């Protein structure tokens, strides 16, 4: 599945490029969003960004064209982690922070399943930070949807690992002291093979990113900016408001020069990214002031994540006035689960035919092996 956002991914040593859903059985016929809607009442707060993401996922899943029974959604704890209950697929609402580890077991055990993790900024980056980075490092074939509302919602409004420093919350009446994580920078540093960022309210962009993430074989991390109307309302206003979003969103499209801001006569944005030779990073300049050739052309498939990381640093760590949006990185490298299964398959093939009688016979020789003696 290829989209305008991604182009064709490069290969890093994986013979025979495979789609993320290649071994998952296809649906018998066309499906609709209704097929994926469970009979459970959705219980998020009115106006919650989670509704938009749920709708987008329910209407996207039919496009995947996979058998419903071969899709598994796993979540941790938090508002967004109720997600699996509302989808009529297989699913597990697990424990706080551990969804990536449970999904690792699922994805490794069964090649015929499309595995999705739904998590939040607290679940994935605080209590479950360890599991997230190791899933990314191993490159287990799953798609992680990280709903980032920059606040703890379910526990009623404490600051989260993505909240801006100084944030006044119930637990930080004098302002929080923690420096926040940038989830994209974190994922890139954790050797992720697919890293993207999108917005709950932009259905079209969200759906395109989901399609690319599902098509990617390996761990896909999709950060979704998601508004919490109760405890952190307006956190993403700058990138959502028609008045400001042109200057706030740095759109990333593979193969395109990166410009944003008000539109110039030639169709380019008034601001552009160029390399900053002093720091090795990137900086924002006026498009008119630089040669077109110096403007950074986005390369999501670069084997070297340095530029993707540099771009990710343009995300504001305080109130969000500027943020790159799109697919930062998509490279192919062997997945943990494919290789784990290959080892087992090879060992089974070498040992025998793998049927029950064969296994019983080999069990007898295993336990009766070594130095034995017989007493009559």
């Amino acid at each position, binding site marked *: 599945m290829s989209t305008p956002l991604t182009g064709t991914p490069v290969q890093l040593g994986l013979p025979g490029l495979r789609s993320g859903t290649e071994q998952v059985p296809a649906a018998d016929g066309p499906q609709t969003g209704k097929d994926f809607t469970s009979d459970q009442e959705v219980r998020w707060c009115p106006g919650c960004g989670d509704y938009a993401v749920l709708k987008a996922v329910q209407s996207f899943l039919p496009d995947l064209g996979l058998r419903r029974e071969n899709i598994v959604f796993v979540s941790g704890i938090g508002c967004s982690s109720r997600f699996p209950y509302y989808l009529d697929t*297989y699913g597990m609402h697990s424990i706080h922070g*551990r969804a990536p580890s449970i999904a690792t077991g699922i994805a490794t055990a069964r090649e015929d399943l499309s595995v999705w993790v739904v998590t939040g900024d607290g679940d994935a980056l605080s209590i479950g930070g360890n599991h997230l980075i190791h899933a990314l490092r191993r490159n287990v074939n799953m798609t992680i949807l990280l709903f980032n509302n920059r606040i703890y919602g379910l526990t009623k409004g404490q600051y989260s690992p993505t909240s801006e420093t100084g944030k006044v919350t119930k637990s930080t009446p004098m302002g929080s002291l923690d420096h926040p994580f940038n989830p994209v920078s974190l994922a890139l540093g954790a050797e992720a093979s697919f890293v993207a960022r999108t917005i709950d309210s932009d259905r079209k962009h969200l759906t395109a990113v989901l399609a690319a993430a599902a098509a990617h074989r390996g761990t896909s991390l999709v950060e979704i900016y998601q508004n919490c109307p109760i405890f952190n309302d307006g956190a993403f206003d700058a990138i959502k408001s028609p008045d400001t979003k042109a200057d706030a969103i740095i759109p990333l499209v593979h193969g395109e020069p990166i410009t944003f801001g008000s539109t110039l006569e030639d169709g380019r944005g008034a601001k552009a990214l160029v390399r900053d030779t002093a720091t090795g990073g990137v900086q924002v300049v006026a498009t008119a002031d630089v040669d077109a050739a110096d403007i950074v052309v986005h390369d999501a498939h670069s084997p070297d994540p340095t530029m993707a990381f540099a771009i990710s640093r343009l995300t504001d760590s305080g109130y969000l006035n500027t943020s790159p949006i799109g697919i930062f990185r998509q490279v192919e490298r062997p997945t943990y689960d494919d290789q784990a299964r290959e080892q087992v398959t090879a060992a089974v093939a070498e040992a025998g035919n793998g049927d029950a009688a064969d296994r019983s016979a080999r069990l007898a020789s295993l336990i009766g092996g070594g130095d034995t003696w017989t*007493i009559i």
Partner: protein
Amino acid sequence: MTPTDKQVKQLDRVIIRFAGDSGDGMQLTGDRFTQETAAFGNDLVTLPNFPAEIRAPQGTLPGVSSFQVHFADHDILTAGDAPDVLVAMNPAALRANLGDLHKGATIIVDTHDFTARNLTKAGYTDNPLDGDTLDEYALHTVDLTGMTVEAVKEFGLSRKDASRAKNMFALGLLSWMYGRPTDPTTTFLTKRFAKVPDIRDANLAAFQAGWNFGETTEAFAVQYEVKPAVLPPGTYRNITGNLALAYGLVAGGVQAGLPVFLGTYPITPASDILHELSKHKSFGVTTFQAEDEIAGVGAAIGASYVGHLGVTSTSGPGVALKSEAIGLAVMTELPLVVVDVQRGGPSTGLPTKTEQADLLQAMFGRNGEAPVPIVAPQSPGDCFAAAVEATRIAVTYRTPVLLLSDGYLANGSEPWRVPAVEDLPVIDPDFATEKNHGSGDDAEFWPYLRDDKTLARPWAIPGTAGLEHRIGGLEKGDGHGNISYDPANHDFMVRTRQAKVDRIADSIPLVEVDDPSGEAKVLILGWGSTYGPIGAGVRRVRKAGYKVAQAHLRHLNPFPSNLGEVLKGYDKVLVPEMNLGQLSLLLRAKYLVDAVGYNHVRGLPLKATELAHAIGELVGQAEGIDVELGVWGEPTQKEHI
């Protein structure tokens, strides 16, 4: 190697302890001697004992590593209380182990390492080999290192490398003393060092030189013979608990027709289970070394959800970390085997030493009412059957099961009669394939609609069309399994999960009591690895002429259904444990029985002699008599125990 004209003396049992620095290869030496002994056909029990540090400071007391092997011409139950022979490779090894020897025991020391510096490190002000402090022992001072270096000089190794073969010299000498077959060790060394011919040849030469030294020197006048034991017919092999447990998990998977998925994190003394299972991918076994204990169990739960046999292996600290996830498996009612190879605690505790202090953690160590069945093996070989049983319960009842092994079982070994595969239980995963509620167009799949007999819920795995469902940690409505906050439903579900675990008692054997006279007033009840010492203690008391009954629990939760009746049948109940009375607490709570504890937490197995005295005292109280154990209360007595 030819027989000699030296005197040959018959013994019915011998306890040898090899002790040296942790870099001296004592575990390997002990293991080789054990394999020779197994090949010879003696019954045997071993007790490895080593520091947690890989290389503790050389020559110091904390750095001493030892391996004890007890072998006999009859069935034995323990590694023995007091060694008959101590091989001490340095002063620290002598000092650390001397207190365990009985007077008259044989001591063989490597004089080469008794230097002023090493003596100081071991805390000796005078060389014990010079004075009269060892006069009560049969002391053999031998320059093991010097003779080893001499024996291997033709291979051109450095002095350091040459001297490293001294453990094989010691093994050769002891192999001669006890008439052990040498072929197993020759074959082993040839294979082990096939890629380094110099080292291989040096080790073979040192081994041979040790044997020859025993045969020719006048220092060792007697060769001993311990005849093969008469054991029940069958094929035997020597096996450690961790190996048997890993085989049991492979067997559980085969018998259930399920691929095994081990999600785990390395931890002493459980890591060998991971190492072993990683070799058995050909049985469809997947091993996943996770980033931490929690991810290990998480992945296992995920694998179980999609139809594998999820297993996680750890020790006490790991169980603490996994507790929340085990609770999730209780709530989602998925099969899961949690192996806890217990070690000394609390916290990091004594990583390489044994203890049984995780019973209450296994029983209660989760939030909420979260009952988990508990199974415990009683000897190294029994770890196999216990693992198969844990698998049976987990799969049949859709529940996590705690399998409580311990450090002594894990590393200790014994001859194990290999079971016939056709005698193993067949385990039916009984996956759900059909909707189970309503009919026609209204038919639905209800994930919490239970089996009437077992109360187990259906196991519907992804890929099964029409049975799509969601499970999770939130309370489930009875039957349909949707989230429910209804007070009456929660009360019902809590009781139902408990009832499901209680019903497992219908599928397990009644506890058997060994009470030959049928007139004993005292019952000794144990669980886990104390089986050997308890059995040996009971034998001693019976030999001394007193009546005592013994029973041992395989299932700690639920208990066998006749346990309450059994306990009522005795005036006094003694519960020996390597903890401060955890089974006693459970028995007192459940059966209102005045269980008397016998408790030690020294990081070592209980001693049979001490147990015999504790049993004797209780028998005396129960029967109103004075109990005199005589020679049966002495650790050194040499008769059939």
